[in-house]
């Protein structure tokens, strides 16, 4: 396995939302960082994101959902590592 040297804090971009005209609010925080609503809808384009990841045989790397564009993707969320179900 290649080198897995990695700092403790290495933020990924998180949700990558389409830019809007009013992307920056008065607080200087971009709207994309303030989104707290479910945007995913069946029949609509998936919302892209970048997340840090552990990949077997590779190690730690950032992964973007759109890296897999052109393939069938299954995206699974679960409550936590080491939980029972």
């Amino acid at each position, binding site marked *: 396995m290649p080198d*897995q040297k*990695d700092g403790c804090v290495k933020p*990924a971009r*998180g*949700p990558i*939302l389409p830019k809007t005209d009013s992307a920056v609010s008065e607080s200087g925080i971009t709207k994309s960082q303030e*989104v*707290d*609503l*479910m*945007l*995913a*809808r*069946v*029949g*609509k*384009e*998936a*919302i892209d*994101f970048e*997340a*840090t*990841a*552990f*990949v*077997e045989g590779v190690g*730690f*790397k950032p*992964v973007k*959902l*759109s890296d*897999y*564009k*052109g*393939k*069938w*993707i*299954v*995206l*699974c*969320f*679960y*409550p*936590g*590592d*080491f*939980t029972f*179900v």
Partner: protein
Amino acid sequence: MSTDSRFVHKIWQEQELSRMLDGGVPFPMLSDGGGRIGTIYGVYDEDAGVDIRGRFIIDPDFVIRAMEVLTPEVGRNPQELIRQIKAFQLVRETGDVTPSGWQPGEVTLTPGAALVGKVWEVWKP
């Protein structure tokens, strides 16, 4: 994807998953610390601070075709996931549609004027 860090994912893979499945899980284990991604996918439980059991099928055009969300106590059904993927793939290839409970190899329906009122002739549930 869960709210665990990539470090916890690595240890879970090494300590437990690799003992359940030879070689461990072969796909990326993603980290959603803070739940920002789970929030836009509608699965982040703010009170518990975790992403609940959500599953999304996304087609090659990047369109979400299916979603299923469960509270944590009940596990998923991988056979149903595979059935849905096969159904969506067949629909994409042929333009036919799959009736309720369809399994691979079973009859599909060709939508159109000729089928109106005639589904009973071709599909026997």
